[in-house]
């Protein structure tokens, strides 16, 4: 598939080990690409480089063939953007702001904008400086999506949204993905990444640690279960049973095992004679990836 966003050797060094170093990756047309990392790891810096707000020291970014620094104006015509921190110009109400944006983007038919306003239950008549954080975020979402741009670049788009609105945002992302749009987003909410992204890049201290294919991570994975035993004797007996034990706790008589789906029936047979208190499935999620990949980098 065609590469629509291309980042090669992108470097911006702020000194003291801060910044981003030698970032290279690309986003394909029609892909939803997630960007995950600790606070201060360089997510916003990367996004601000993509939008042409910062000039890279080294390397370059092209979006749809345009250079993100030199052709920043051109790029803004077909890229919808949600910044990480929203500061609206002082133009009065949400309605006024959205109309200014619509004029700027040359949108004549406001019906899609109004569909979004209704979808996010946005009270646009509220004054921008009276809006709560969540309302501002919703206004920014409407402004970014209302022209149905080919490319969306979003910096933690669900910050401050309530759970219902987070689900609406996921719905909207999937709807735009269906229409072939390319979406790049950073996030700390694993649920929204899992539900939307084709690939997720993990970054830490300004370096890309790993890029994970969602399909690959959901399938082909062994599963983990936490099992609680009622009796110490049975807990100890189970330990001898040749299962891969990830961790155990003598005090609570519980342990976590890792097994393949094909061994599930064998596990049930092993457990059947025992007095079991609970079996908790512990899903492998992006969060698991995060804590196991990113946290280990700290050491």
């Amino acid at each position, binding site marked *: 598939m065609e590469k629509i966003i291309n980042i090669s050797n992108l470097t911006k060094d702020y000194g003291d080990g801060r910044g981003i170093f030698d970032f290279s990756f690309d986003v394909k047309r029609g892909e939803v690409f997630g960007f995950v*990392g600790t606070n201060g790891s360089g997510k*916003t810096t990367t996004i601000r480089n993509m939008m042409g707000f910062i000039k890279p020291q080294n390397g370059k970014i092209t979006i749809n063939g345009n250079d993100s620094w030199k052709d920043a104006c051109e790029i803004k015509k077909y890229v919808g953007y949600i910044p990480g921190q929203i500061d609206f110009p002082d133009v009065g109400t949400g309605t006024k702001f959205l109309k200014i944006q619509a004029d700027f983007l040359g949108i004549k038919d406001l019906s899609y904008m109004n569909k979004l306003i209704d979808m996010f239950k946005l009270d646009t008549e509220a004054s921008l400086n009276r809006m709560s*954080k969540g309302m501002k975020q919703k206004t920014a979402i409407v402004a970014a999506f209302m022209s149905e741009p080919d490319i969306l670049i979003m910096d933690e788009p669900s*910050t401050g949204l309530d*759970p219902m609105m987070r689900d609406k945002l996921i719905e909207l992302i999937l709807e735009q993905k269906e229409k072939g749009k390319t979406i790049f987003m950073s996030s700390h909410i694993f649920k929204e990444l899992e539900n939307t992204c084709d690939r997720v890049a993990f970054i830490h201290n300004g370096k890309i640690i790993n890029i994970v294919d969602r399909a690959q991570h959901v399938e082909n994975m062994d599963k983990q279960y936490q099992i609680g035993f009622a009796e110490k004797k049975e807990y100890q007996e189970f330990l001898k049973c040749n299962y891969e034990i990830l961790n155990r706790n003598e005090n609570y008589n519980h342990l976590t095992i890792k097994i393949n789906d094909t061994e*599930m*029936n064998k596990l049930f047979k092993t457990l059947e004679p025992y007095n079991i208190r609970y079996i908790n499935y512990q899903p492998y999620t992006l969060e698991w990836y995060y804590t196991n990949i990113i946290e280990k980098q700290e050491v």
Partner: protein
Amino acid sequence: MINIEGGKEMAVIEVNNLTKDYDHGRGIYDVSFEVNKGETLGFLGPNGAGKSTTMRHLMGFAAPQKGNAKILGMDCRKEYAKILKSVGYLPGEVAIPEGLNGNGFIDMMQGLRKAKNPERIKKLSEIFEIDLQQNVKRMSIGEKRKLAVIAAFMNDPEILLLDEPTSGLDPVMQEKFIEFIKEEKKRGKTILLSSHMFAEVEALCDRIAIIKDGRIVSIVEAAEVKHGLRKIVEITFIGIEDYKRFLNEKFEFERMNEEQLKVDIVMEDADVNKFLAVIVNYKVAIFVENPVTLEDYFMHFYKNDKKFGGVTNGKNNKHQ
């Protein structure tokens, strides 16, 4: 400072019929609740429901039209300066003056509060991994939030008002924050916490108040809610015969999918041995759990059927 009446402790935080109408149906109306000493009250509700407005009244930033907010028996608007000594506040939106570095900001805040706690500040900056030498201008959004966290906790206040405290923090920091608050709870702190993150509500709150359209619609004990959550397991069978045979077993079926040979059943921990005795007679391909979370439980409070006027091309955009 705690008043004791007839052996029963008075609420540390008290909100009585608090009303502030911003027109167009925006505002808070007759909001009443209390937070007792040592208690953590979760404050949930849709965006724009009035959580931050209520918090801001507790800080004395806004004057109520009706009712009052009290902390330690003192009126929040009239005696905000006295109250400030006992309260740590983490605002929902953090605006930190640029041009300072982290230490400069902390010094400024200490000056405002006329307090010095270098050791606690050092400890906090280690827990939350923040470099206080760094210029605020260079800090990312998450780092600014961490700085606000330190400012809220540095004087070790006995009351904490936390407005979406972990929003913008990365997952590792979210976890650290929850652990930190757990410790503060053990030390007897009284906490009001607004949040959209159910993991933190579940881990920290004793009671949960729900606000919707500016009104309190429900206040529940967290333990009661957690107790009512049921565990759902999803079983995929290898063959259609097994799938069909299993449907005759005595379980509470939540969902069935013949095409995928998949069933969802309710399985309380107490039933696990009964379940094992049955399941060994079947060939199972996949066994996973769909945990029912607090989020599922509370989701219906976030439904919004309100119609807001859209934007038209004409000059007059009156609210409908």
